[in-house]
């Protein structure tokens, strides 16, 4: 493994996060914006899994691997990522429900046309 492949997952995580933020900032559709927020969250999954990766290691399941016989990847970050997925699902569901209400009350899902709150 070279230095490039070690750094690559981290760069990918940064890239995903920034591209999601770019999408959020320029979004013309709130459903698209909620999707972009999920993209930002995907960056956290990539980062967490990259942190736990070890060269030549296998999944941390000891049913067919003798404990200590070969390296396993860090199970803690996988648990964290799983919790993160649950959190993300909740947030996305709630946000989409709010977008539905925005569409009903404002008659649009374009954030440029929402002008009730400002100043």
């Amino acid at each position, binding site marked *: 493994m070279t230095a490039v492949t070690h750094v690559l997952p981290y760069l990918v995580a940064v890239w995903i996060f920034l591209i999601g933020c770019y999408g*959020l900032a320029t979004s013309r559709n*709130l459903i698209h*914006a909620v999707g972009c927020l999920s993209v*930002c969250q995907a960056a956290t999954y990539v980062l967490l899994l990259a942190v736990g990766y070890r060269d030549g290691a296998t999944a941390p399941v000891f049913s067919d691997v003798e404990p200590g016989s070969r390296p396993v990847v860090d199970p803690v970050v996988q648990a964290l990522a799983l919790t993160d997925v649950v959190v993300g699902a909740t947030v996305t569901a709630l946000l989409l429900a709010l977008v539905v209400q*925005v569409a009903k009350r404002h008659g649009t899902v374009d954030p440029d046309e929402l002008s009730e709150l400002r100043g």
Partner: protein
Amino acid sequence: MDDLLPLLVALPLLGAAVLVAGGRLVPRLVAESVACAVSAGTAALALVLLLNCSPPMVEWAGGWVPVNGRSVGIVLVGDGPGLGMAALASLLTLAALAYSWRYFDEPPRGHAGSFPALVLLFQAGMCGFALAGDLFNAFVWFELMSVVAYALTGHRVEEARAVQGALTFAVVNSLGAYCLLMGIALLYARTGELAMTQIGRGLDRAAGPDGPDVLVLAAFVLVLTGLLVKAAAVPFHFWLPDAHAVAPTPVCMVLSGVMVELGAYGVWRVYGTVFAGPGGIPAADFERALTVLGALTAAVGAILCWYQRHLKRLLAYSTVAHMGLFLLGIGVLKPEADDGIALYLLGHAGVKAALFACAGILLDRYGSVDEHALRGRARELRGVAVLFTLGALGLAGLPPFGTALGKSITEEAVGGPLTVLYVLATAVTAGAVLRVAARVFLGLGPPPENGDAYETTGSGERPETRHRLGRIPDSMKAVPAVLLAGVLAVGVGPGFADVVAHAVNEAGSGGVLVASVHWTPAGILLGLASTALAVGLAAVAVTRPKLLAPAWALPLRRLQSGHVGDYVAWLLVGAAVLGALALPGVLGS
């Protein structure tokens, strides 16, 4: 005693579950009584634990205690500040539930339990965040309280403004939470630990002779971005006025009174336990970052507060200004300032919740929170007028309110030009509230001209009660009165300030025990000065409306565009600024 710590989180969670499951079977009265009982019980438990929190309690949930000093279990830390915030959150939740008692919006048939259940979930999230001793669970509680707050903000889904404000709130805060999580992942990558104290030690061990490196800086910036979004520091603050202007009043009381403050508490906690060591961020850089952002927040919040005519939005900007003052106090890293901020925060929570409660009474009585539309209409509400004015004076820091005690201790600790900023920011925000009081309750001054179109007026809001209130129910008046009495007790209660100071310093990063905190002549004078200034500003604003409304603030107001994309861009700008402010410590070492 330690074993009781998880109950602070478990009780409201259980209560919420019971209400969701049984809420459709029972009448509204039962559901709300259960919610009040659960939140009161949690508050009582928090207070009992608070009285016994020396030395601090540590509870590893499920008995997963560290082995050889390492553990990735869930740890709850019950020290003075943590339990204090949990108690404050519980008490304010109780106040909000009492305020909404039977008069708040009629729930749809068969859903009597949904609003109280959400409020209890909110309480559980806040208590959990206050007590979390490990960073990942702090993130989980942070998200729980955020998600419930989004739902509560958008609770009146048939309101166009409410759903828009909730959506903005949700997008910006979730993005902040993801920044927080990325920072936590980086810290875990460096140290292999999740508990805050262990991460702090791990950073010190891992740091070479050169001190912190870029990874620590990145983690610091990401974690602080998440917490500062919650704390509504400029330029992360844009979500707050939009959310607070549209949330139901009882929810506003909790949001402004304690949830936003939990962000500042998080900054204090995380810096003190994780980044304060030699392997973390040098104190000078933390001070620089928080002083710049805090001063900016106080100034922007105060200026924008002055320009509002939407009453709830005005109070929201006042919260932004006060958050700036709290961050300034935390940023100087002095034990005396920590004591002052703790007292100030307690006082501010009571005052702000009471003011929101009064604004809610106006909304439910007249169907408007617009300063111009309400002019002179509330003359009949004498009791509410007195409470509102007392709240405004408390906001200005009039001795002997608890806000004044906390403010004066902090002012003396920060010293110099920052003291002037404290006086000015509180005077301007309190002046704006007093101006509203004079116009709305007394009808003083000429009718103000309608300004430009670029503002949120606050007229045409729907009352939160089923009908417009003819008579103000006693519970709605009693809640602000009790809250203000509590603020007064913080200021004059003998020995109370010393107890708070002892609890804060025992847990604080300084570890230095300050002998005593008390009123000083200089502090009383400063409090009187800011009150006099506030009254003067309000008097001028009412009699000569044009004099104190210069046009140069319009560009600042235009930044608050209501567009969620803009707010996300500002969040990135803020993170970059934070990184730039903390950079010298990494470069210089």
